C-alpha cells in the first residue's frame, strides 16, 4: 500500500485549529523541518504541541511560535528562544513541563494502548502535584497517563512507500514513539525508497504506524552546539 504524498503541503491536509500535535526531535536534531516550515506558513493556530523542546528563535518550532500558532507546549526542556520566554511570561503560551523519560513513556503508552502506568520520576516534586501516587517495592511512584495526538509529525533518515522508517544516530529520539501515538502520523524522510529496499530486520518504525510519507527537501539540520575536539 502506497502512503506517499507529494510534499509537506499535501501532508498537512486536515490540520485544524486547536488540535494536539506531536513533533519529533531532540533540540534541533531529527526535527521534521519541512512539515514545520509548511505549518508555519499555514493558518492553523491554537495548537497544543507535544515536543521535547521548542526549537530556537528562527528555526524549528520557534517558527510556529513566532506566528502565535501554539497555545500550549508539553515538553521537558524549553526556553532556548527569547520569544518563547516572552510568550510564557506574558501568559500567551501555556507550558506543561514533564520529566523527559516520563514524557517519552507517556507517548509510547499512547501508541501502545496503555492508558496509564507508574514511574518513580517526579515523586515528591512539583511534577507530582495533583497526580496519584502509590508505593511499589518500597518506593513511591506517580501514575502517569498516556499521551496521543491528532497528528504526529516525525522525521526519519530513510523510509519506504509502505511507511517503514529508519533513523540515523541520535536523530531517532522521540520520533519512533511519536509515530506510534498519532491518529495520523506524517513522516518526512531524507530518502524515500520503494518497498523491498529496506532490510525488514532493521526497520525502526514499522509502516503500520505511518499514514503519510514524503521525501523532504533542503534539509538544513542546524547544529545548536557545535563542539569540536581540540
Amino acid at each position, binding site marked *: 500500500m502506497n502512503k506517499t504524498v507529494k510534499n509537506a503541503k499535501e501532508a498537512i491536509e486536515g490540520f485544524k485549529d486547536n488540535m494536539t500535535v506531536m513533533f519529533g526531535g531532540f*533540540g534541533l536534531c531529527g526535527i521534521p523541518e519541512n512539515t514545520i516550515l509548511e505549518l508555519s506558513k499555514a493558518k492553523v493556530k491554537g495548537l497544543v504541541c507535544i515536543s521535547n523542546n521548542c526549537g530556537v528563535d528562527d528555526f524549528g518550532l520557534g517558527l510556529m511560535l513566532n506566528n502565535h500558532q501554539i497555545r500550549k507546549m508539553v515538553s*521537558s*526542556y524549553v526556553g532556548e528562544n527569547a520569544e518563547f520566554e516572552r510568550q510564557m511570561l506574558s501568559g500567551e503560551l501555556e507550558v506543561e513541563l514533564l*520529566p523527559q*523519560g516520563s514524557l517519552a513513556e507517556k507517548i509510547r503508552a499512547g501508541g501502545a494502548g496503555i492508558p496509564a502506568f507508574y514511574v518513580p*520520576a517526579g515523586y515528591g516534586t512539583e511534577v507530582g502535584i495533583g497526580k496519584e501516587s502509590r508505593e511499589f517495592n518500597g518506593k513511591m511512584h506517580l501514575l502517569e497517563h498516556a499521551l496521543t495526538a491528532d497528528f504526529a509529525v516525525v522525521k526519519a533518515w530513510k523510509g519506504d512507500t509502505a511507511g517503514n522508517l529508519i533513523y540515523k*544516530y*541520535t536523530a531517532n529520539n522521540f520520533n519512533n514513539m511519536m509515530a506510534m501515538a498519532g491518529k495520523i502520523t506524517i513522516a518526512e524522510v531524507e530518502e524515500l525508497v520503494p518497498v523491498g529496499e529496506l532490510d525488514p530486520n532493521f526497520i525502526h518504525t514499522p509502516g503500520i504506524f505511518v499514514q503519510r510519507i514524503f521525501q523532504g527537501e533542503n534539509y538544513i539540520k542546524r547544529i545548536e552546539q557545535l563542539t569540536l575536539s581540540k
Partner: protein
Amino acid sequence: MALDKNQIAMRIAREIKDGNYVNLGIGIPTLVANFIPEGIIVTLQSENGMLGMGPFPTMETVDADLINAGKQTITYLPGASFFDSATSFAMIRGGHVDVTILGAFEVSEKGDIASWKVPGKLIKGMGGAMDLVASAKNIIVAMQHTNKEGQSKLLKECTLPLTGVGCVKRIVSDLAVLDVTEKGFKLLERAPGVTVEQIQKATEGTLIVEGDIPEIQF
C-alpha cells in the same frame, strides 16, 4: 585550597568502576570523562538515545544527527548503539545505568536534590534529571559547597523546588567528599589544605565527622 572544576571531576572519576555504564550531566560531570583511569572501560550513556559516546568530533567528522543530551556534537565508539528516548529511559529507570553524575543547586541531608528551577528566574525545564535521580543505583552530585554569598548548599532541607527525594548517595564538592547517610552528611575526605572546621562552617546540614578525615590525594 578548594578544588577547581577539573579536580572535582578528577576525584569523581575514581568512583567509576571497570565495566560501568555512566550517565554524565551537563557542566562538571561532563569533565569526568577526561579523567577515567587507564585500564578502566566505561560506557557513557546519553539520554537522548545512545550508548558508547566518544569525544567531540573534528570539523571533518561532525554530524548534525549525532549529538549528546547537552545538544553538543559528539562521536561514537566501537560497540556503540543508538535507540529511541523510551528505550533510553527504560535503561535509566530500569536501573541498568550504574552511575549517574550530575550537578545540583542544593542537596539536603536526607539526599533530596534541587537542581532544575529557581523561582523568579526563567524556568527551562527538568529535562531528564528527574528520571535520572529517581532511578539510578548510584547518584553522585558534583557541586560547589557554598553559593557566591558563602551560604551553604548542603542543607537540612532544600529551599528550592526539588528534582528528587532521598536519592543522592555521594557528594563531591570543592571542599569535601561526603556520603548521604541516615544521620546526615558523613565527611569522607577533605580538599587539600581545607580543615574540618572550614567544612563544618560551610555545611548547614548535619555533618558527621568520625575519626581522622584524610585529604583527597591527587
